[in-house]
């Protein structure tokens, strides 16, 4: 399920050699030099960085064997050309400063598959995720997808090879929180021969979490948070997402421990979260803080206190480190208004390297 120890060592080496700022080959790599890892103790992170300084990032050589999230090994003779079946894959490519080898851009799509800023779109696009003929004609080594979730994924494998990434909250994985994002960055970094950029992106994500932690107070840490999906009922995000792990580690809130599915309205009223984000959508949803008018809504503390806000579509639970940084900045802007952090704006124009959270740590 994981990259071998040797390959992780290479990746960590790349991080230290890159100083957290990438290798200068372009891309988004202007990450801060310091990465106050929120998951590891500062001393541990420093020790880790010291250990890998002596290694050489150029030592990553092909042929290279990488193991995906479901235990399948892929051997590459050269950096892979990847087709991004999952938006988490395009997120990672953007973070690494590489355009995907191929990606779907369905008509009318407003977010999925087009998170290319600042690297731009791929040379080859298919018109739909299920355009199997298009995928099979793309000049790619394999598709990258989040861990298999449904029988549809098995259908895809009949047409093209698939490399699976970790996706807690969506699929079974032994990784929790934003560890999955880090691992996915490192996996794709190896596939693309960009381990230094991958480590820079990991450091950037951890720096954003540390930046959010700068606003932590005991009061904020005790606040409960709920994310409501685009539904007239009370359908909530589970608490096993990278976002929930990040705000908990940053000490600015705790996601309500809820299971998948619609929650009974009176039960939600009883939980009465301190902060509510509503999935308002990129292109106009019918269910926003302004349009919700059910009897429970007006009685919620977050609504009465002004800590219920509309959020962009999907980004709190999808899909990679860039969208996580976006979501954390969005959370800081609306749930911690005293932070002075501005709203991040549209995801398609969001450059994580410029997030003000990175300046807070």
């Amino acid at each position, binding site marked *: 399920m994981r990259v071998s120890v040797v390959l992780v060592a290479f990746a960590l080496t790349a991080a230290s050699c890159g100083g957290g700022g990438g290798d200068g080959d372009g891309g988004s790599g202007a990450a801060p030099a310091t990465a106050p890892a929120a998951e590891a103790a500062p001393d541990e992170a420093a020790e880790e960085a010291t250990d890998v300084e002596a290694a050489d990032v150029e030592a990553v050589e092909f042929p290279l064997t990488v193991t995906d999230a479901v235990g399948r090994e892929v051997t590459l003779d050269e950096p892979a050309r990847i087709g991004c079946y999952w938006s988490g894959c395009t997120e990672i490519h953007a973070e690494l400063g590489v355009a995907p080898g191929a990606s779907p851009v369905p008509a009318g799509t407003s977010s999925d598959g087009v998170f290319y800023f600042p690297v731009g779109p791929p040379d080859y696009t298919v018109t739909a995720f299920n355009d199997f003929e298009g995928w099979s004609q793309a000049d790619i080594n394999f598709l990258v997808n989040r861990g298999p979730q449904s029988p549809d994924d098995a259908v895809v494998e009949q047409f093209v090879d698939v490399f699976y990434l970790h996706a807690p909250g969506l699929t079974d994985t032994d990784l929790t929180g934003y560890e999955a994002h880090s691992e996915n960055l490192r996996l794709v970094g190896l596939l693309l021969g960009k381990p230094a950029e991958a480590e820079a992106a990991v450091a950037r994500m951890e720096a954003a979490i540390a930046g959010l932690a700068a606003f932590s107070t005991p009061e904020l840490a005790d606040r409960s948070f709920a994310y409501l999906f685009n539904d007239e009922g009370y359908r909530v995000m589970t608490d096993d997402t990278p976002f929930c792990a990040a705000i908990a580690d940053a000490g600015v809130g705790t996601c309500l421990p809820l299971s998948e599915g*619609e929650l009974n309205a*009176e039960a939600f009223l009883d939980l009465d979260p301190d902060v509510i984000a509503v999935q308002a959508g990129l292109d106009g*949803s019918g269910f926003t803080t302004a349009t919700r008018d*059910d009897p429970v809504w007006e009685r919620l503390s977050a609504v009465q206190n002004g800590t219920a806000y509309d959020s962009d579509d999907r980004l709190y639970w999808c899909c990679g480190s860039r969208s996580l940084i976006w979501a954390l900045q969005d959370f800081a802007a609306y749930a911690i208004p005293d932070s002075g952090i501005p709203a991040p704006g549209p995801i398609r124009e969001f450059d994580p390297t410029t997030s003000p959270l990175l300046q807070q740590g």
Partner: protein
Amino acid sequence: MSDGGPDGEGRDRPTARARYRYRSDDGMTDVDTSAPVSARAEAPDRRPGLIGLLAGCAAIVGVCTALQLMIGEPTLSPGELIAALGGEREASFVVKELRSPRIVAALVVGATLGCAGVLMQDSLRNPLADPSLLGVAQGASLAVAITTFYPALAPPVPRPILALVCGTAAGLLVVLVTGRLRDAVRLLLAGAVASSFFGTLTALVIFFAPSDRAGSVAGYQRFAIGSLSTMEWETVWRLALWSLPAIPLAFAAARVLNVLKIGDDVAANVGLDPGRARIVLMAIAMALVAPGYAFAGPIAFVALLAPHITRGALGSSDARPVLVGAAAVGATQMVAADGLGRLLLFPSEIPAGVWTIGIAGLPALYYVGRVRRSVSW
């Protein structure tokens, strides 16, 4: 022809007797209608009859209602429930504004579906007919799918209203298209084709939905399965206002249903135009189900099974008691299904439509299969 005779216990079985006569008029073997009476007299009929059926339904509804009102967050004792019903505390809000509307909505939706099922099955002389053949559910689902996955394309009206308008329009289209068809089988086929057409359009909308709307799929599925979880009084009043007036119309049409069941020739002999009568009856059925489908989603199985359960319990296919019984059975099914959906995995909600199939459907199917020999249709 021994199927479904009078029960010999003094119950009202006029239609059963009449049916035998009409069948003989159609050239079938002449049957002495007294024969089933004597044949059955030795084996007492243990079917509950209309009063028993209504009493049973009332008992089930009463138990479900009490549990629905008492259990949840907070769970209340009977005394606390009574206090909450009259008080202004938080529990009062939960009981009066969150729990009670669902129960009333379940009663209304179930009763209208039950009546609509009788109208469809009797007028088309097909025991498998149900309102889904009118296209109302599919039209409403199409509207909801469009508003869910292409919100920018949807007109700025509340989703239930749009679902009601589109469901009604789809039903009217079916009624108009089938207006010239006097044959019940062709009419059924036309309805099935139209329903499939709208269903296919809905599938296309979902298939081509932007992937960034994937998070909305669960919301759509919630509607497509049928749920009462978001019912509030304003919705319930609209639902009742728009659908309940059609119930008296359905009862008024009982005699026409009884004639149509016998056959088109007989109906023509008594001066009834079968084609026009079916159109009117389907329009009434549409008026019954469209609001429920719009606000609660296309609840499955209730309209199909409530008439069968009622006929089995009554041992009669007389439309008058069957309409009353089917309304009660449908309401009971819905109250029980919504109660299960709300309480079984509380605080998680399971759509009521799941339980109308999973809990009410399978035992009812068994029951219908068991009594098919003794209940004429």
